[in-house]
């Protein structure tokens, strides 16, 4: 209700007396009745009368023709009026403190479904229950106000009406009068104390716990991951809806009184939760680094980055500087953390110390872990490309330091630092695996191990388009060459000596072709071949090449060399053995036997198990 313009001087005194009467009537320190009822809860007429009374007193205070006594009375009356208005103000605010259904708003928030890589936005531990989302929005609509919930989307900020418009109008009219009477501080005080509790209550329902930095350092990372997820959801609602709406409410109530007032009120009301919100993210950003934390840290970084424009808007006033600054600090620390974690990870891969050889030469858990990790890194490529700005620190070719491999960058021109890091990781993985392979007593197994693992690396790279694109086909070719070479080395290590038994030289005596075959030498050869093959068969059946195709290829490759050689050996020399005693001791294997035995290789089972399996 606007204060009336001018009343003529003659009616002035009467108006003043009436006004004073009204104000004194509502002095709650003086009358029971005044204490029991609230003006603004009653008749609109009463409200208008009271406000007019206040205006009249105020007008008379600014009029020049007053005596000292009058002045004194005015001042006392104004004080009574202001005290009353303060209570009314508080009461109106208290009548509209229903908590907002923030979780349903979160569910309905379109921007919260953007990050599908952190696709665990909605989980079972969400407060959203069995009800239909629609039902909850309906309830939110009706509970937030007298059915007047408006959604204004300006970018991702959505302010909602926390208090119905009539109440806002009343609060405005009280605020205006308090402030023009010089009671600004009291007004801000009351507003802040009531709204603060409401914001606190709403904030609490978002489920962000009060944790100290010490608590957070002590928690297990799994538990923290859940809390980070929850934080990300809550922060979006908090800043875009909760805080933004409070800000708008302040602007509405203190409309036209200058921005300093509504800024001050806004800060009063949201400071606590805002500090708590930001402190959690800050605590995460300074926690100790370990590789497992990478991806949640990146999620947190991305979520906060996403919120920065909204933070800039909501916390735009000077008094809110500290929040904008803190958000920037947290972002920078998270970025640093990501960089540090990558470094940690690289060191961990290089120095991973386990010496126990993986049985059967199969894929080492380290290989799986590392390849999974860098696949995930490539999923987060968009963020990490921005954050990873320097090349990996590699060994130098000339340093003579044998504990670190080196990597030439010349051939990797034009690659982003992130891609260089990924390649470096693969380099050091191989370096580490190479060291591990040396712990196999059997050098063939060492080669097989390397073949398996490098092949796995190649498969993983091929399986991820982003990873492949960053690693590049050149390096991929190099890796492919490596595992093929390992396969070749394996074959040489095992089969050269076996095939050596089937060579021609040394079996013929005195140069004559058909009759000059030394039977004893031949028998030795067969015996040696049988023993060797049996041993190799028994041993290498327990070895494992997990990849089906690779296993087949390797077996075929072995067969291609072994079978023709044996067939031709048998063909040439069987008659010599058959013409002697106990040929079965020497020609233990038929060609078919060998062919079928080769199929046992690299299955990872003992041969006896094979026999059992085949007979079933």
């Amino acid at each position, binding site marked *: 209700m606007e204060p009336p313009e001018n009343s003529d001087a003659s009616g002035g005194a009467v108006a003043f007396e009436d006004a004073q009467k009204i104000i004194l009537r509502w002095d*709650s*320190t003086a009358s029971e009745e005044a*204490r*029991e009822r*609230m003006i603004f809860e009653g008749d609109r007429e009463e409200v208008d009368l009271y406000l007019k009374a206040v205006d009249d007193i105020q007008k008379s205070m600014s009029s020049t023709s007053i005596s*000292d006594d009058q002045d*004194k009375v005015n*001042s*006392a*009356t104004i*004080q*009574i009026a202001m*005290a009353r208005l303060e*209570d009314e103000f*508080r009461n109106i605010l*208290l009548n509209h*403190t229903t908590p907002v259904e923030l979780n349903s708003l979160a569910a309905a928030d379109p921007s919260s479904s953007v990050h599908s890589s952190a696709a665990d936005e909605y989980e079972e531990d969400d407060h959203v229950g069995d009800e239909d989302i629609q039902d909850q929005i309906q309830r939110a609509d009706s509970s937030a106000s007298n059915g007047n919930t408006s959604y204004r989307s300006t970018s991702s900020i959505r302010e909602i009406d926390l208090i119905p418009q009539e109440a806002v109008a009343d609060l405005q009219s009280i605020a205006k009068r308090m402030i023009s009477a*010089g*009671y600004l*501080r*009291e007004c*801000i*005080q009351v507003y*802040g*104390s*009531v709204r*603060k*509790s409401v914001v*606190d*209550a709403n904030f609490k329902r978002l489920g962000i*716990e*009060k*944790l*100290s*930095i*010490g*608590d957070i*350092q002590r928690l297990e990372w799994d538990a923290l991951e859940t809390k980070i997820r929850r934080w990300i959801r809550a922060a979006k609602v908090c800043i875009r809806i909760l805080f933004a709406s409070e800000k708008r409410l302040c602007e509405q109530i203190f409309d036209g009184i200058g921005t300093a007032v509504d800024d001050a009120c806004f800060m009063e009301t949201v*400071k*606590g*939760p805002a*500090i*708590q919100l930001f*402190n959690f993210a800050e605590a995460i950003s*300074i926690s*100790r*680094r370990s590789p497992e934390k990478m991806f949640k840290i990146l999620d947190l970084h991305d979520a906060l980055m996403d919120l920065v424009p909204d933070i800039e808007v909501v916390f735009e006033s000077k008094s809110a500087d*500290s929040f904008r600054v803190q958000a920037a*600090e947290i972002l920078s*620390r998270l970025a640093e953390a990501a960089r*540090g974690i990558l470094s*940690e990870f690289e*060191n961990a891969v*290089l*120095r*991973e*110390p386990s*010496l126990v050889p993986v049985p059967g030469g199969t894929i080492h858990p380290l290989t799986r872990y590392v390849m999974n990790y860098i696949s995930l890194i490539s999923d987060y490529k968009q963020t990490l490309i921005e954050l990873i700005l320097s090349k990996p620190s590699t060994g130098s070719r000339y340093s003579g330091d044998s*504990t670190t491999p080196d990597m030439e960058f010349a051939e990797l021109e034009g690659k982003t630092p992130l891609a260089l890091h990924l390649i470096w990781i693969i380099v050091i993985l191989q370096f580490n695996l190479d*060291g591990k392979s040396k712990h196999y007593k059997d050098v063939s197994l060492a080669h097989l191990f390397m073949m398996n693992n490098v092949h796995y690396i190649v498969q993983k790279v091929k399986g991820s388009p982003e990873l492949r694109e960053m690693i590049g086909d050149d390096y991929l070719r190099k890796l492919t060459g490596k595992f093929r070479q390992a396969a070749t080395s394996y074959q040489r290590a095992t089969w050269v000596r076996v095939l050596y038994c089937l060579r021609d030289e040394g079996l013929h005596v005195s140069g004559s072709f058909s009759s000059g075959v030394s039977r004893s030498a031949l028998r030795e050869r067969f015996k040696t071949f049988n023993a060797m093959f049996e041993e190799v068969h028994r041993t290498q059946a327990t070895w494992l090449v997990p990849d089906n195709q690779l296993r087949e290829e390797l077996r075929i490759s072995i067969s291609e060399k072994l079978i023709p050689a044996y067939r031709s050996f048998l063909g040439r020399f069987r008659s010599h053995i058959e013409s002697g005693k106990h040929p079965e001791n020497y020609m233990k294997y038929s060609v078919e036997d060998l062919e079928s035995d080769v199929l046992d290789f690299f299955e990872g089972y003992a041969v006896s198990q094979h026999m059992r399996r085949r007979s079933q």
Partner: protein
Amino acid sequence: MPATDQQASFLGRISIRRNQVISVDGNNDQELEDLELFQKHVADRFADLLSPPEEVASTEPLLSISWLRKLVDVFLCCEAEFKAVLIMCREHSQICKPPLDRLIPELMDRAVKALDICNAVSSGVDSVRQCQKFAEIAVSALEQKPMDDGQVKRARKALNSLLTAMTIDDKENRDFKGAERTRSFGRRGNTNSANKERAVGNFRSLSMIVAKNWSASKQIQAMSSNLVAPRGGEPTGLALPVYIMSSVMVFVMWALVAAMPCQERSGLATHFQIPRQLTWAHSMIGLQEKIGEEWKKKEKKGSVGLLEEMQKMEKLALSLIEFADGFQFPGDTEKMEEVASQVAELAEICGKMEEGLVPLQTQIREVFHRIVRSRAEILEVLEHAAKISQPTT
């Protein structure tokens, strides 16, 4: 800026001292010298805090805002020097061996607790600003000339809120549940409870920041419980500077907690002891005794903290409320003069708060940053040293 001024004067002293020392062979001697300088500087800085020169003492009384700002500054200077000593130590491998393999992680743990205390104290500063606002209402009301009933009543209301806010116990604060909703206007006449409820709304913000069972006093206790001076006359390597820095950290946090409103501070006076025979610690011990004494005096009242300005504000508020209760226009001239000077004093205090509290918060934030950074760097050194000592495949 105070920080650089202080640093400049001390750095100046460093270079003078170095020139005076006869250079001896060996890096070890340089380190010893650095260590001695570090001790000396700590001693000097705290001596300055305990007994500042004449012209400063009156404007920076113990535990006033400006004194606290100096204290925080001292921390920053000591920390910078400590880090230099630590990081430049040639034998990083020392860090993985006893006793440092235990002492450094303990220091890191203390650092984390200090971070929480920084946040809590900063929140406490916000609470002080709330009180400042109440006081400002009272001041502006009582500054009106001539003083009349209306303004006096207004002032009284504000002063009441102020005192209620000051004497609210932490315990009460935590147990208090949304009383606004249940208040009946039948109690309206009892202005005390009404104001109390209003004031609680403000102090509610205190408990918003920290968890329910977080205790400032327990944090300090935990920080100092494993603080043990390294023994013996033998050179202790880095153990001594670590001990010194830890003591400085605990002392500064302890003093801040004593000064500002913080959750749960019972028993604060007894939570921190430094062995008396340490020469560099004399002034620190002296300060600790003084502050401890003060704390014991005020503890029972559920004090809002020892901040000098708050103590003064409380006294003035009590006196002015008494005046307001008995006020009858136009009031006794002598009394009015007395009141006017008290109001002026209160206004001055508000002015100091207005001027100094935000910068204090900024400085505390700087402490926060510094501790975070140093901790990260020390952790990196630890990781690096661990790597070197670890055999590779």
